[in-house]
């Protein structure tokens, strides 16, 4: 009996020591990021059966486990994902808005100044200074548009760089998680949870979730499988698949993200990669940034077409018929890199005032042509080409294969290329006749300021609508960023409420285990005294 008393005392000492060690671990790791507080689990040892009943035989430490509530952790992870998505979108839109607002100080006054100089020209059409001023203001307008487009192009390159960084981060995290999966699976064979490895993996998962939203599937061997998007596997057990950026089927400046297995990369539709910074940047690039270029280009095409038509209706200072004032590159129709057929599409602007601020995806399914307007996702179907959509006439040469697709854009080439085609003031068609005092044509050009030349809006109206659109996106994104950030922080607090270390609580645990240790020590001393007493009897 005394021997079992010693064993009971020893078990108590051991348990208290483990408790103290665990508490000490918690205290020293209070500032370790991602650390989940640990607690020792005690259980009464298997009792001994004696004739007089079951006698307890001390305490066993069953396990040291993390106080981790998986549900809270998952919620916090998803919220962090959403917050990163909103933050990436909002910050990027902040840059775009600064760009557009500073362009507002260039494009909008340039439009007003151009029409004002047309007005001044109509009052003194024989004045060569007035003619030169008209051309200078036309040049300023064209430069305002192309400079803004250049800045948008630079922003696009920067965003693509950020997307590449995000992809690299995802790959790094995925590889690390896979390695940890292997370690945890090996360590879990013993039956005890490898707490620190589990903490590390959770931290990596949260980091990964901030790049792209993930779904996690815990496995029976302790590893976690991770998938992204609509179920594409990223980490399976101890192996990780890499993400890679590949060129889009149409354009080189909008690369898409794909999963790589072996040498083959399967592109993921950008709309599937929601959540996280990667999702936010992709959504920003393909929606807001494209909308900015489309709106700018549409303004360029419609304004140039209206002014050119009016100038051609008049005669210049030498009596010859007026020519185009602005020159704008023709619409492009780029075939997909996956096209099998030998067809080439062409596009011309037939009605610039009906042009929409959008690109178009034109595809052939074997029996009909389908035209998808990128800005709002609406579709039209035609059995043959040529067909006209939104003032753009699309025609085909050659034979397409079913599944061939083309990207038609009138807006992008215009935004990049608008320039003044006239070189001398004398070439401006200020009058309807060659008489030196006839300024009626210049007056008609000036009147275009109030004409609905851009899909039902005036030129200034179209520009201000673009500013408002980008502004509204930025505003919304700002609100989303604040809302998701606050939700993420409150869910993270909720997780920490269960899993975080509270120093005061650990202080209490210290005193508790210390006293238990002292008590067990006293028990051992008593057991020793009893043993001494028995030995005395035997002498």
């Amino acid at each position, binding site marked *: 009996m005394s021997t079992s008393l010693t064993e009971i005392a020893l078990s108590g000492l051991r348990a208290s020591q483990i408790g103290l060690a665990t508490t000490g671990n918690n205290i020293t790791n209070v500032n370790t990021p991602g650390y989940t507080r640990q607690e020792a689990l005690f259980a009464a040892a298997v009792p001994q059966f004696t004739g007089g009943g079951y006698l307890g035989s001390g305490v066993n430490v069953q396990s040291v486990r993390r106080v981790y509530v998986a549900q809270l952790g998952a919620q916090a992870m998803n919220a962090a994902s959403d917050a990163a998505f909103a933050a990436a979108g909002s910050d990027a839109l902040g840059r775009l808005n600064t760009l557009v607002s500073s362009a507002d100080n260039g494009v909008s006054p340039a439009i*007003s100044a151009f029409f004002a100089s047309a007005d001044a020209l109509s009052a003194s059409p024989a004045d060569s200074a007035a003619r030169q001023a008209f051309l200078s203001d036309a040049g300023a307008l064209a430069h305002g548009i192309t400079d803004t487009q250049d800045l948008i192009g630079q922003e696009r390159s920067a965003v693509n760089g950020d997307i590449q960084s995000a992809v690299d981060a995802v790959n790094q995290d995925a590889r690390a998680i896979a390695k940890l999966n292997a370690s945890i699976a090996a360590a879990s064979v013993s039956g005890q949870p490898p707490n620190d490895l589990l903490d590390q993996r959770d931290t990596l998962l949260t980091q990964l979730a901030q790049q792209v939203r993930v779904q996690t599937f815990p496995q029976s061997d302790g590893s976690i499988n991770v998938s992204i998007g609509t179920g594409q596997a990223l980490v399976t057990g101890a192996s990780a698949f890499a993400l890679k950026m590949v060129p889009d089927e149409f354009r080189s400046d909008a690369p898409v993200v794909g999963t790589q297995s072996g040498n083959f990369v399967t592109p993921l539709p950008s709309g599937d990669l929601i959540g996280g910074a990667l999702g936010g940047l992709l959504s920003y690039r393909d929606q807001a940034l494209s909308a900015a270029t489309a709106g700018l280009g549409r303004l360029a095409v419609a304004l140039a077409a209206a002014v050119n038509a009016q100038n051609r209706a008049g005669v210049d200072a030498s009596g010859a018929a007026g020519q185009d004032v602005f020159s704008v590159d023709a619409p492009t129709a780029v075939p997909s890199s996956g096209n099998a057929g030998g067809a080439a599409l062409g596009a011309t602007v037939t009605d610039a005032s009906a042009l929409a601020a959008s690109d178009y995806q034109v595809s052939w399914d074997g029996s009909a042509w389908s035209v998808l307007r990128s800005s709002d996702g609406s579709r039209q179907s035609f059995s043959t080409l040529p067909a006209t959509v939104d003032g753009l006439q699309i025609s085909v040469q050659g034979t397409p294969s079913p599944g061939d697709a083309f990207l038609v854009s009138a807006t992008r080439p215009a935004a990049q290329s608008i320039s003044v085609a006239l070189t001398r003031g004398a070439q401006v068609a200020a009058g309807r006749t060659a008489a030196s005092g*006839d300024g009626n044509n210049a007056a008609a050009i000036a009147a275009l300021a109030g004409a609905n030349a851009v899909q039902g809006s005036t030129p200034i109206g179209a520009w201000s609508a673009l500013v408002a659109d980008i502004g509204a996106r930025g505003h919304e994104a700002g609100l989303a960023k604040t809302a998701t950030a606050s939700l993420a922080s409150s869910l993270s607090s909720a997780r920490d409420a269960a899993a975080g270390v509270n120093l005061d609580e650990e202080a*209490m645990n210290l005193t508790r285990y210390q006293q238990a240790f002292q008590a067990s020590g006293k028990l051992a001393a008593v057991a020793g005294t009893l043993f001494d007493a028995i030995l005395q009897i035997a002498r």
Partner: protein
Amino acid sequence: MRISTNSIYEAGAASIVQQQAELAKVGQQLSTGQRFLTAADDPEAAAKAVALSAAKAQNDQLAANQATAQNALSQSETVLGSLVNTWQNVRDLLTSAGNASLTDQDRKNIAQQLSANRATILGLVNTRDASGNYLFAGYADASAPFVDGPSGVAYVGDAGAKGIRVASGRTMTINESGADLMGGVPSGNGAFATSAAAGNAGSASIDAGGGANATALDGKTYQVVFHVSGGTTTYDVMDASGTAVSTGNAYTGSADVSVAGMVAGIRGAPADGDRFTLAPSSPGSAFDALDQAIKLLSTPVAGAAGRAALTRGLAAATSQTTAAFNHAVDAQSRAGALLAELDTIGQTTTALGQQYASQLSQVRDVDYAAASSEFAQRQVALQASEQAYGKLFTSKTLFDFI
């Protein structure tokens, strides 16, 4: 509910950072004077600001146009005023030339004064503006509209109306056509004109005609043909198709031909086959009328027939110059009316410009009073957060007690 130690510190820090960001934002508003830095801060206001700026720019352009119109119309009105005075002078001279006691020499003097007035009028209608463009030439304003030549003054400008947009929806015509100003003067005596055929061999002449019976005027052209055979001179009156109206009329040195309500006197010695025409008045040039009057007064008057011819001629000249005078008066009053309209429009434009400026300021500029008080408020909030965080360090934990 449990809270971890880290959460306490994190919450405090997050609050301070947040307050700092808000404070910095208000500080930027104060220093730039703008309520929103990019359109994302207030998309609606940004769009409104673009639209208002453009409207204001257009309004400013209209004001510039009004100034241009003002200058052109003022100069025009001044020139037209001088023109009116000159025509009045011409009429006065013509009236004085009808005095029966004047000699040929007196009338010649008057003719010379009329010539001087002619030169003045020619100079006035060929006036140029500050840029060197001719005022009364229509669109062809690079060269003088009235060109003097051996056969009189010809108008070489066009009928272009120069319009300037002075208000949205109001294009003002700022010029007068020289053709309308100096033309449209009925030739002859106001009712009909007489002329001698170019190939007449004799020395007879026909006067301006007059005393027409307005109700009998039929608007047709008639010819008087003289037949001289032996010592007898007769004349036939034929209509335009060659049909004779009256034949064999006797002519003894002078005759008053009367046909279809038109009466004209012929005197002198016609040759056989000489023709004279009586035609309804057609719109002609005031310069031609003036030239006719000068020629009339430079010719000596002979006898009663000559006297009659002079009277008729002076009457014709008076009616023609009165028509030209009226044209000038009308043009001057048109210019004056447009100038008055410009004043009214100008007031509206100025008021509108001020309204746009104030609306733009409302939309775009920061309200300094509100922003300053918000700045002070946020400063206080920041200080409070910082103090609360500071307390965390000074308060005791359980470790101090065990």
